[in-house]
């Protein structure tokens, strides 16, 4: 598969500080990449650099096989972009906006646009200035999808939207992506929403990429382990170095295992460290739990390798 986004050793500054440090990241064509991070992690700076809205201080970035500094109308005609603070020509009606977009995008698809209009329930004759934030995001999404972009970049698209609108937007995206093979790069800290879409996840913390791998791989290797212990045991030292966020209270111990293989291997590991352990259970983590674990661990010890 082609790499549709390729970042090598990129460092970017925003407002005088290094917002992104030595970032290496690849996004394969056809994947839905969730770019996660806390507020101020450097997600928006990375995205703005990918669109040539900011210049990298060091390193290189390529989008659609073109250096970001050389992105021009030809490449931008294949990229859809939607951000949380998306500015639109608000004096236009949805119809005007569609007419304008149709004229500037060579691959504009009228039939698909009509279908999107129905899915997103947008009134065509109302001016964008009279729309709520959710409706504006829907309008922006419409004109970012109707020309079948090869790459859709979404920067916190659901931020500040109510649950219903968020659900409608995600549903629309799911429907679109079921029918077409596109690449999406979506940054968000609304992780539950993103989990429904993504097949690949990258976590950025304080400008550094902590992990980047398929969602399925993350889900299978991150497990919560709960062990029931007889009374009078143990200290935390008995837990292996590999486990994350260990907690021992009363007659039980629990931790997150970031390298879970299967129950047999876990059983052997527990027997080694807790010979008196009576029973254990493993449970999968949601993406949100994985994200919180990773971020919390990195805050405690930035040298941790995940």
């Amino acid at each position, binding site marked *: 598969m082609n790499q549709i986004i390729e970042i090598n050793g990129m460092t970017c500054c925003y407002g005088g500080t290094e917002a992104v440090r030595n970032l290496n990241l690849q996004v394969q064509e056809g994947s839905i990449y969730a770019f996660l991070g806390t507020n101020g992690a450097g997600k928006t700076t990375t995205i703005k650099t990918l669109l040539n*809205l900011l210049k990298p201080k060091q390193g290189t970035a390529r989008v659609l096989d073109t250096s970001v500094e050389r992105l021009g109308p030809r490449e931008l005609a294949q990229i859809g972009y939607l951000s949380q603070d998306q500015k639109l020509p608000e004096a236009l009606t949805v119809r005007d906006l569609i007419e304008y977009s149709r004229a500037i995008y060579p691959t504009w698809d009228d039939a698909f646009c009509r279908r999107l209009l129905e899915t997103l329930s947008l009134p065509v004759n109302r001016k964008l200035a009279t729309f709520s934030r959710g409706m504006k995001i829907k309008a922006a999404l419409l004109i970012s999808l109707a020309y079948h972009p090869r790459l859709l970049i979404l920067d916190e698209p659901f931020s500040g939207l109510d649950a219903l609108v968020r659900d409608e937007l995600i549903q629309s995206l799911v429907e679109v992506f079921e029918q077409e093979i596109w690449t999406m790069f979506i940054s968000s800290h609304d992780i539950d929403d993103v989990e429904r879409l993504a097949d690949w996840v990258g976590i950025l913390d304080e400008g550094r990429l902590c992990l980047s791998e398929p969602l399925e791989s993350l889900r299978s290797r991150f497990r919560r382990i709960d062990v029931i212990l007889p009374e009078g045991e143990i200290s935390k030292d008995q837990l292996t170095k590999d486990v994350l966020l260990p907690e021992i209270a009363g007659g039980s111990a629990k931790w997150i295992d970031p390298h879970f293989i299967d129950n047999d291997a876990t059983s052997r590991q527990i027997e080694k460290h807790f010979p008196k352990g009576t029973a254990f259970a493993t449970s999968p983590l949601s993406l949100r739990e994985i994200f919180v674990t990773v971020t919390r661990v990195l805050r405690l010890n930035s040298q941790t390798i995940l």
Partner: protein
Amino acid sequence: MKTILAHLKKDIVSFGRLAWIWTILIGFDCLAFLDRIPVSHTWHGGMGLVFMIPAVILSILGASASLILQILFVPVLIVQVIHADALTESDAFWRTRPISRGALLAEKALFITLLLAGMALAAFAIRFHSGNASTVATVLQTAVFVSGLVAFAAVTSSFSRLILNFIGIVLGAGVLASMVLGFGRYMESIGANLGHFPMSAHSLSLSNSGQAGTAFLYLGGCLTVVIYQYLTLKTNISRVGLFATFFLAALLQGG
């Protein structure tokens, strides 16, 4: 070309209300023609009064419209059209759309040309009415005024920032130019006292070619800044260019 026209249409639709007001104002200005159109004798008595009153009202409105148009309305419209696709904001809508910077510049130039063409038509009507055909000076004055306005709009993103930039650059360049000229005169007086003449106000002022020279320098500087800013988006360098233009123009004018 398709992109330029689509963008032009977007701007016309976006500023539809202002464009209508502009059309009406231009229409009022053009009423000056009526004075030259031969009128029937019924205007001078009887039914004529019925037509005279609206004609007087229209004439007054037309004269006021011209003033409003030139002082207030057109500058506001030009600045708004430039700021609608701001060059200094990284999150401006056009920045992530398939529009080249050159196409955007061409579209804005086309919009402003259309706007000024209407004004030129009105000016021609007024000149025709008054019998004064001296339009070259008016065209130059308008070009100088509009180029400065566009240059300031191109390096800012809102009207308040435009005003602040204008005050900063014009005041700064003016003060610096007067300091340089004052220093030149001081050196001239010292030179005269010592019997030689190392530096004069005349040598510091680039030339003594008068108002037209200043106007052309200013026009050229502002247009260069506009083109540079549109093609490179290097706002700080454009601001320095604008400052240099005002500084040199002030020096030329002061000398």
